[in-house]
């Protein structure tokens, strides 16, 4: 059995070690195009879980690696001249160069052949060929893996510094061109990694493309001078880069398999690249052992085991990359909330998990949020019993008129009676989605012998829907105004999901120049009548290539705010029946985040949130102000009397 490993980084060397340990009869060679002591980048980070699997896989290298580790458990966030610290995050880091030395030495001791300075041009002859040659893998280009490489996140540049930080430190710096941020962490007793990043717009504004390597370094040194406390930044071919997100449809092609960055990258801001790479090697070696060198079967096992884990990490990494690209929008948040938002950016830390890692931090957050001190760690729902937390019952769609009903079962506002509990009255006109069969049968199935439907343009909604007629705007305006005399606690105007007012807002369904005209007219008229809290339910994007984009939706939300809306109920899609929705848990949270923090208006968000922890995390991080929970049926019975209740957690104004 012969194995050729292309690429002498952590994944390739570690795999060499594990394979020789597995079977000394196997010939293993590692081909590296650079010299043994050439390495790019500074320190690499590991989490506690990774260390456990390294210990099990090879105690010898584990010992050496952990001996030289820099360890810490604190995250510092330096923001607006304040330092916010969170504890309980166990990290370790090591100089990449030191890590490679340890792995190379162990390879030699185990009889792995190491060939440096060799460029591979064709696939080597071997029973197993491993592409461990990084994000720009050559091996990958020689096979059929269905590869996609696309840039993600901000522009970044990777430096070292001789200032030894004592925590994983995020530093934010305002400039005339926008916000810069640094990710800094120690990796031995002398040095730290110091990565600087900024969004493309900022990068272009500062004309970094025209600056030399030395000029960029000098710029960053000056920008972060106070945090560097007189220490220098060091360059190691440190130039501004785009982070390449690599995905592959399959990770093996016959006898060729990809590991590490060649197979998948994960944005550096969650520090998981090296961890994933070395875990790949462990999984691959274990699969070969289990399958007794039946290469084909082992490669399938390897891919099946690693695929879902890597996919989840990549999704978290992309969320994190996106967070830093848009971090400027959070500049208005209170430092405590800003910090909690940062810590929960990738969905891997939630309010509940942080309250275990760092109860002091969540206590501070909860106290800030609740506006009063809380004693012992809140066990279940931290905002339970706070004066600014309340529950509302959503009414479901209530029509302003009989013609505005969705189906014959839809209540009309004149006949609607409020429940005893506080209620959110959701008022709307179904427009071209009206006159349908009961919702229990399905949606958008036209009712035989129904009533005439109206919309701003004569396009039918679904495949068998009739063409709508022009609405009598004066009459409909009067219906909304009359409805605003109703007894409710919060009034919501439905401008989402392709109902009448929503269909005015989209270029897909309204050919007029000024699409906001009638919806704003309705909003203004109702605002005059209704003194209580007024919400607008809005499809922030049409999820359609020719429809309203998220940016359009944010502009609309801004216009609604200026016209007197107090709250946006964030929805998406359903403007047309053939949109391209993106369903998953919490699928509206990111949209709510953008509306709240870019249009700067409070938001209510649902989108299949099923736990109080999700609600607490969203509200605590300032991604929404009110949360609509879809509790699973069992939990509804346990915690609430009836289904379809709205659980709202309100942020103070």
């Amino acid at each position, binding site marked *: 059995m012969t194995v050729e490993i292309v690429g002498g980084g952590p994944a390739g060397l570690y795999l060499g070690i594990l394979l020789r340990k597995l079977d000394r009869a196997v010939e293993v060679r590692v081909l590296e195009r650079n010299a043994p002591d050439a390495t790019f980048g500074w320190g690499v980070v590991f989490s506690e879980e990774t260390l456990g699997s390294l210990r099990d896989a090879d105690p010898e290298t584990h010992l050496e690696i952990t001996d030289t580790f820099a360890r810490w458990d604190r995250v510092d966030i330096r923001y607006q001249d304040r330092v916010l610290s969170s504890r309980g995050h166990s990290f370790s880091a090591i100089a990449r160069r030191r890590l490679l030395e340890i792995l190379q030495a162990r390879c030699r001791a185990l009889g792995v052949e190491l060939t440096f300075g060799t460029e591979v041009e064709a696939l080597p002859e071997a029973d197993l060929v491993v592409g461990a040659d990084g994000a720009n893998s050559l091996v990958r280009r020689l096979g059929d893996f269905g590869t996609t490489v696309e840039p993600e996140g901000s522009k970044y540049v990777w430096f070292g510094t001789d200032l030894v930080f004592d925590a994983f430190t995020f530093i934010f710096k305002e400039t005339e061109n926008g916000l810069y941020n640094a990710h800094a962490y120690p990796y031995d007793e002398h040095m730290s990694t110091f990565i600087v990043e900024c969004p493309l717009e900022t990068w272009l504004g500062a004309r970094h493309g025209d600056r030399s390597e030395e000029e960029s370094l000098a710029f960053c040194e000056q920008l972060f001078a106070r945090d560097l406390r007189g220490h220098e930044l060091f360059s190691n071919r440190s130039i501004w880069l785009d982070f390449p997100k690599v995905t592959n*449809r*399959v990770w*093996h*092609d016959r006898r060729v398999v990809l590991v590490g960055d060649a197979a998948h990258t994960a944005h550096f801001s969650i520090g998981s690249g090296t961890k994933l790479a070395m875990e790949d090697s462990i999984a691959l070696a274990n699969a070969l052992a289990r399958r007794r060198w039946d290469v*084909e*079967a082992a*490669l*399938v*096992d390897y*891919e*099946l085991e690693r695929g*879902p884990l890597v996919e989840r990490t990549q999704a978290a990494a992309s969320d994190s990359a996106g967070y830093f690209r848009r971090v400027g929008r959070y500049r208005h948040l209170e430092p405590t909330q800003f910090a909690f938002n940062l810590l929960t950016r990738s969905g891997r830390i939630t309010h509940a998990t942080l309250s275990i890692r760092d109860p002091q931090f969540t206590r501070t957050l909860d106290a800030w949020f609740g506006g009063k001190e809380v004693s012992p760690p809140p066990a279940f729902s931290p905002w339970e019993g706070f004066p600014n937390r309340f529950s509302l019952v959503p009414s*479901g*769609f209530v029509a302003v008129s009989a013609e505005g009903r969705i189906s014959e079962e839809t209540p009309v506002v004149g006949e609607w009676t409020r429940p005893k509990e506080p209620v959110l009255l959701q008022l709307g006109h179904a427009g071209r989605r009206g006159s349908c*069969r009961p*919702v*229990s*049968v*399905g*949606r*958008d*199935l*036209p009712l*035989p*012998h129904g009533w005439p439907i109206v919309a701003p343009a004569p396009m039918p909604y*679904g*495949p*068998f829907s009739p063409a709508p007629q022009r609405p009598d705007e004066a009459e409909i305006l009067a219906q909304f105004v009359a409805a605003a005399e109703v007894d409710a606690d919060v009034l919501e105007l439905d401008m989402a999901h392709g109902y009448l007012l929503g269909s005015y807002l989209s270029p897909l369904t309204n050919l007029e120049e000024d699409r906001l005209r009638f919806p704003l007219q309705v909003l203004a008229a109702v605002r005059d009548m209704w003194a209580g809290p007024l919400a607008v339910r809005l499809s922030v994007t049409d*999820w359609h290539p020719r429809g309203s984009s998220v940016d359009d939706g944010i502009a609309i939300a801004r216009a609604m705010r200026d016209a007197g809306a107090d709250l946006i109920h964030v929805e998406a*899609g*359903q403007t047309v*029946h*053939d*949109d*391209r*929705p*993106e*369903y*998953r*848990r919490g*699928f509206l949270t990111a949209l709510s985040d953008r509306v709240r923090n870019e249009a700067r208006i409070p938001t209510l968000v*649902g*989108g*299949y949130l099923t736990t109080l922890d999700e609600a607490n995390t969203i509200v605590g991080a300032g991604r929404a102000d009110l949360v609509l929970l*879809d509790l699973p*049926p069992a939990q509804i019975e346990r915690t609430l009397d009836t289904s379809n209740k709205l659980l709202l957690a309100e942020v103070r104004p």
Partner: protein
Amino acid sequence: MNVGVGLPTTTPGATGERLLEWARRADAGPFSSVAVLDRLVYDSFEPFAVLSAAAGATSRVRLATMIAIGPLRSTALLAKQAASVHGLSGGRLTLGLAVGARVEDYEAAGMEHRGRGRKLGEQLAYIRGAVDGERVGPARDGIELLAGGLSGQAFSRMARYTDGYAHNGGPPRAFAGAAARAEAAWRDLGREGRPRLWGQGYFTLCDPERGEAYLRDYYAFTGGFVERIVAEHLTSIRAIKDFIRGYEEAGCDELVLFSTTPALEELERLAEAVG
């Protein structure tokens, strides 16, 4: 969770006689449904023809397509075929529809591959009774309608027009992910309650080699992906029990297990595992 069993309409060696005997025994066993796959360019039986025959051979189990490729058929004919099976079986049809995965089926049927998603949406709406004055009988009331697919549009079609979701197979974890998306779509479309969730998997308890050879042939068109399907092939009672438990925990309502060989003994052994 209910457990159903596939009729081996696509496995080599299955005769008409065998399929009917299989349906009869399934009806007498611990299974809640018998289900069929659909593929045009392959040595396999036509799903509605098989379910019609199964309707006569059974009296209890539901008869399900998991799934039938809707857009290979004209909409009105599809509706009539489905309604006929439903009528013949005394109202036992579960009609799972999706767009399928092979262009060659569309070419052989003389149907457009482009626009297949839109056409499936029309078919689901039509079968649900969206057309006023349409006179294609028999009555379709009470057909349990499911839709499959993994795109956002597929989930929204499912939630808009049907009773639930037909998953395409895979480990329980993959099913759970799809189920969450189906539930999210269901709530988003304002439907009441929750969608019915159907899952499926492949097994053999008689001849793993033969079963695997069939899977490799049947899924050759998927390229490297066939390896995953083979790796998920259930070949022991224990694996089947784990699989069933995993699906149950993921919220599945009906799990259909398809045998990869047509041996009647498969059914007996599966009955032991399930029972």
